[in-house]
């Protein structure tokens, strides 16, 4: 039971970080970024390359720091190249699906070309095991469980208190009123992508420390993140976060009690039933 909850909270934490970035971009721009999973992978590789002796060998903390800086820039570049040219065109949602899918393929193959297909892993930030309420867990798992809510809390504060955070929400809620306050929509979109990529990078580092780093490591989490965003209610950050933890826990429980092969079936059954009852997701707004 304890082990199930730990596993659920770890995946929930990682899903929440990935999905909140996706949700933020959807809320502000109304587009889905299909390269979000590839960003996660890029973040993990940057952290590995800077930290690992096979790369620069500067140690884990330098790796994580480099990853965070790199991701902010990567998010901005991705926005400028793959999204900005189509803002304001009639089919922007569909066009951006195509451009970001293309971007994801490009990044995946680029990573394969540069780093090869051999599995890599990041060092763990903390090692050993800890025991809480009779449940033994890897210290790294505990760190993920603690760190994710801290980062999500920081994101919430950014959106509630800072000028750029408020601007992101304003554009999502009333584009014209936001422009009339002098908010530079272009700049705000750029900031949204940078923040979103930063969250993806952190998730990449977490996954890289717990599992493996491969060029395709972002695909599965991206799919989960889409489920989370739809399940939680499009554009609702609290909904997204609740949904992330719920899905993490459902997956963990069903893998343990029903079996890993039936887990997707169980997960999708729960999602479909809930979306039948609440078509806009847990905390979604009606259109």
């Amino acid at each position, binding site marked *: 039971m304890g082990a199930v909850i730990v596993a659920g909270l770890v995946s929930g934490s990682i899903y929440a970080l990935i999905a909140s970035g996706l949700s933020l971009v959807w809320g502000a721009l109304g587009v889905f970024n299909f390269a979000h999973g590839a960003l996660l992978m890029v973040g993990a590789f940057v952290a590995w390359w800077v930290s690992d002796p096979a790369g620069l060998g500067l140690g884990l903390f330098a790796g994580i720091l480099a990853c965070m800086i790199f991701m902010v820039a990567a998010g901005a570049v991705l926005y400028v190249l793959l999204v900005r040219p189509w803002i304001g065109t009639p089919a922007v949602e569909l066009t951006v699906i195509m451009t970001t899918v293309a971007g994801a393929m490009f990044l995946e193959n680029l990573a394969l070309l540069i780093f090869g297909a051999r599995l890599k892993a990041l060092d763990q930030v903390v090692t050993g095991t800890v025991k809480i309420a009779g449940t033994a867990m890897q210290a790294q798992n505990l760190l993920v469980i603690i760190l994710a809510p801290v980062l999500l809390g920081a994101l919430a504060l950014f959106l*509630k208190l800072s*000028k750029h955070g*408020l*601007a992101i*929400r*304003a554009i999502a*809620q*009333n584009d*014209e*009123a*936001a*422009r*009339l*306050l*002098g*908010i*530079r929509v272009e700049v705000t979109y750029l900031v949204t992508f940078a923040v979103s990529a930063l969250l993806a990078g952190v998730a990449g580092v977490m996954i890289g420390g717990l599992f493996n780093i491969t060029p395709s490591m972002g695909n599965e989490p991206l799919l989960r993140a889409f489920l989370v965003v739809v399940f939680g209610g499009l554009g609702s950050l609290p909904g997204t976060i609740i949904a992330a933890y719920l899905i993490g826990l459902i997956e963990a429980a069903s893998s343990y009690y029903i079996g890993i092969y039936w887990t997707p079936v169980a997960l999708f059954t729960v999602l479909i039933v809930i979306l039948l009852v609440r078509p806009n997701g847990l905390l979604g707004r009606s259109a």
Partner: protein
Amino acid sequence: MRLEVEDLHSGYGRIEVLHGISMAVGAGESVGLFGPNGHGKSTLLRTISGLVPVREGRVRFEGDDITGASTDAIVGKGLIQVAQASTLFPRMTVLEALTLGAYRNAAWSHRRETLDKVFAIFPRLAERRSQHCKTLSGGERQMAAIGVGLMAMPRLLILDEPTLGLAPKIRQELAHQIGLVAETGASLVVVDQDVDLLLGLCPRLYLIEKGRVALEIKDRSQLNHQDILQRYFGSAA
């Protein structure tokens, strides 16, 4: 002159809505705009704020030519427009929306002092500060919208139909509060259907009709406004 509009033409797509409007607003002056719906009042305001491109003519603000400038550059100079308040920012609290009002650089560092001034004019907003905008009543929403505009420390504040759809009593309260806003030294441009309300607030009015200035009323004592009502809104008004 704080705002000068000269022979302004603009519109949407192939349709021209403004066919050469000229108007001016002095420093600290309040000017009213009225006229039938669909004759270009909102288009005029949207063009002045840079949301609709200028096709011909000039807009000057405090002597600077702002024709064709971006909305954020225009706002940066202190020309602030309060959008029609029906929605504002539905899922932000009143305090968040007000804080965001101070977005422009010149206003951001003064946001705490400005907030006190806004609360002094609209005490109701202070009571409602942690409520979401969508839960406000119609009158409170208008107050919030004007308050958000004031947070930007406007040199000129444009109000587009601030009393739209409000009950007469709230309309009176709001008119009084707009009067207080005028005393802050900002120039005001107020659009409203209620000519009596405009006459109470603004010494000078423009009647906008068919995309042109049909009439400028400079002296309200000479105004037979019954005549105007009859001429432009039909005898039933």
